[in-house]
């Protein structure tokens, strides 16, 4: 039995509560979008826990939707809202993402189930391709959503950290953003290894990613910072 998804799920749901609590206290659409992205992250790792105990093709589809398609994009959308404050580009992109996400959910849920042969002792990332048929559009959306999410989340955190470093302000946010960038890159790299047919490090990378991003978030929001987030 693989215990890493249990730990990832606990860390991620605590993280969701921390981010959503901050949203309730301070507002900010980016915090709400990060909460949604982290909720997808947590649902993804929770389905890994469930699929380590019993098999259900619906859970494999939910795992694929949340873990492989939606998490990075919704987290990245939060960063877009944080960085693009002028105009309504961020709002338009959010509606586009919502529409694409709805399409992804429909496509994955109606995708034909291929086989009920599932070994609970193996990771879901090794077997999901045997469980349901991914159409070309599903694969295309998966890749585009991941590129968008990784670029905006990691790129946004690197850019923010660079600005804090250059201006020599808010050291906690500078280091926090470095940890967020490193944490977001961990599952992105794990997923990329998987796409590239290399070693399956996904579960470990998800756990490391959740821990690093959580520490980064706590660090970035610690202390009495006077500037906008």
């Amino acid at each position, binding site marked *: 039995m693989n215990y890493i998804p249990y730990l990832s799920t606990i860390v991620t749901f605590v993280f969701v509560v921390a981010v959503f609590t901050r949203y309730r206290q301070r507002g900010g659409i980016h915090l709400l979008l990060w909460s949604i992205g982290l909720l997808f992250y947590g649902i993804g790792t929770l389905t890994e826990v469930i699929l380590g105990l019993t098999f259900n093709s619906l859970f494999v589809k939910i795992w694929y939707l949340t873990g492989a398609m939606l998490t990075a994009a919704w987290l990245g959308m939060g960063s877009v809202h944080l960085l693009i404050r002028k105009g309504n580009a961020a709002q338009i992109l959010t509606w586009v993402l919502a529409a694409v996400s709805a399409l992804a959910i429909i496509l994955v849920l109606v995708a034909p189930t291929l086989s009920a042969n599932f070994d609970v002792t193996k990771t879901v990332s090794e077997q999901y391709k045997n469980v349901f048929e991914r159409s070309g559009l599903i*694969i*295309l959306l998966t*890749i585009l959503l*991941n*590129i968008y999410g*990784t*670029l905006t989340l*990691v*790129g946004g955190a*690197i850019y923010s*950290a*660079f600005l804090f*470093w250059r*201006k*020599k*302000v*808010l*050291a906690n946010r*500078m280091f926090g953003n*470095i940890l967020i*960038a*490193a944490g977001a*890159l961990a599952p*992105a*790299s794990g997923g*990329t290894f*998987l*796409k*590239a*047919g*290399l070693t399956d490090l996904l579960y470990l990378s998800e756990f490391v990613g959740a821990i690093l991003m959580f520490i980064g978030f706590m660090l970035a929001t610690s*202390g009495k*910072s*006077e*500037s*906008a987030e």
Partner: protein
Amino acid sequence: MTKPTRSKRFDPSFWTEKLVPVLLGILLFILLAVIVLIGMSLVGLTPGA
């Protein structure tokens, strides 16, 4: 209208001054590598695509 705010400045240590940009460069490099690999899987150049 909101009151103009000031952010807390910090005096970077030698390591902060030199290591942070290196670290950011490494992260940027990994980000680009990940994007390239995802792009390669888009055009079917990776076995797991």
